[in-house]
């Protein structure tokens, strides 16, 4: 290794200037480039990113997309304009839009969305070719049977065509003789027509009240209702409290318990039923729930 001896400090500095580490022009440009590039990217991506204000529905967040799809389904149900619905769905830029709608239908079903919402979404799903139980229940294929239902004086003209697959095992007030009809798919016999909170000052204690009606809105006695909760289950029949109606039955609720209710003959399960405080104008009482189930098996009930 070279060893240099300097007689003066000046000599040493001179030597260092001429032999010290030197950066070439290319190295200097490269260092500048890296520094400038990093700073510019920080600015462009984090400090001052491009803000798109002319976005398409494809940019919407998942919950907003769900709302968008729901709006499409409701619009399609209202105006029947399939071309328009397709155009709107295409704006989502989703190659598996049928799967997306099917998943949304299931999600809505689990979160207890209203029957009308489910119907709209199921109608859209069916049009997209989705084949599932939820679609079969909420948007059944129109058939001769359902046409007969539509002509019947029901509250909702879109009563689904659903056949009975199971007969009641125990009927305390046997007024009907159900005739089982073979069916290729197991679909619920009852559908939830209405779900409402009960807030009555003079009510004994919060209850789950179930009203069973037939396709013509007549009360149905002797219908078995199953109630489940974590770690237990029970059942009761309609028609035991004649003063409240032939189709009426109830079940006393306990505080802090989440109940699930379904009809023994087959229905979707209504979940998340718990004692809920009523609003203040009825005194903030603990309230129960009233569920109205409609038997949709028109074959059984037709005269």
């Amino acid at each position, binding site marked *: 290794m070279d060893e240099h001896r300097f007689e003066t400090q000046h000599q040493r500095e001179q030597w260092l200037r001429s032999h010290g580490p030197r950066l070439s022009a290319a190295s*200097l440009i490269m260092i*500048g*480039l*890296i520094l400038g590039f990093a700073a510019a990217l920080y*600015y*462009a*991506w984090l400090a001052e*990113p491009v803000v798109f204000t002319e976005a398409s529905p494809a940019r*919407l967040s998942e919950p907003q997309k769900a709302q968008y799809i729901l709006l499409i389904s*409701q619009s399609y149900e209202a105006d029947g304009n399939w071309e328009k619905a397709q155009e709107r769905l295409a704006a989502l830029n989703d190659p598996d839009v049928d799967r997306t709608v099917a998943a949304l239908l299931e999600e809505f079903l689990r979160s207890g969305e209203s029957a009308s919402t489910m119907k709209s979404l199921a109608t859209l799903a069916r049009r997209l070719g989705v084949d599932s139980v939820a679609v079969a229940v909420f948007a059944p294929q129109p058939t001769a049977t359902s046409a007969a239902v539509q002509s019947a004086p029901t509250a909702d003209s879109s009563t689904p065509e659903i056949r009975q697959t199971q007969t009641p095992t125990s009927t305390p007030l046997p007024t009907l003789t159900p005739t089982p009809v073979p069916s290729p798919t197991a679909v619920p016999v009852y559908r939830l027509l209405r779900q409402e909170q009960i807030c009555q000052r003079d009510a004994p204690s919060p209850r789950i009240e179930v009203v069973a009606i037939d396709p013509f809105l007549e009360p149905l006695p002797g219908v078995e209702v199953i109630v489940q909760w974590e770690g237990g289950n029970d059942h009761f029949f309609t028609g035991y409290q004649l003063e409240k109606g032939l189709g009426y039955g109830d079940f006393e609720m306990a505080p802090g318990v989440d109940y699930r209710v379904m009809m023994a003959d087959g229905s979707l399960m209504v979940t998340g039923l718990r004692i809920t405080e009523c609003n203040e104008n009825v005194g903030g009482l603990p309230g129960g729930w009233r569920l109205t189930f409609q038997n949709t098996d028109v074959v059984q009930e037709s005269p």
Partner: protein
Amino acid sequence: MAPWWQRLLRVVLWLSLGVILGIASGLLLGWVVWPIEFTEADPTVLEESYQQDYTVMIATAYSLDEDLNGARQRLSKLGKQDPNAWLLSVTVNHILNQSDETEIRYLVQLASDLGLYSPAMDPYLTDSATNGAVE
């Protein structure tokens, strides 16, 4: 040999050239080639034509569920300072552009139920009043 200040100047010049090139390419990349893509948007950033269509869908859905509060809430999601003025403007635009008559009727119905009025809505309001009377 060049004096020290000349060499310093040389360093500064080359470095600056690199920084300028780096900034230019970084901004080009960050703003044009690969801009940040927001995918968690809400309806407020939708292009105006989509917002108009969104409004039509709200009105159409309202014709189905008749949930005025729900329609009001949905309109507010568009982030307009005055959602009613927006609805009225969309309604009048649809009427003036002679858009689909069914859509106009849905829009007019919602606008009317929200207490909005424009003379352009008159023909559609009269029709619905007549239909109502017939029914």
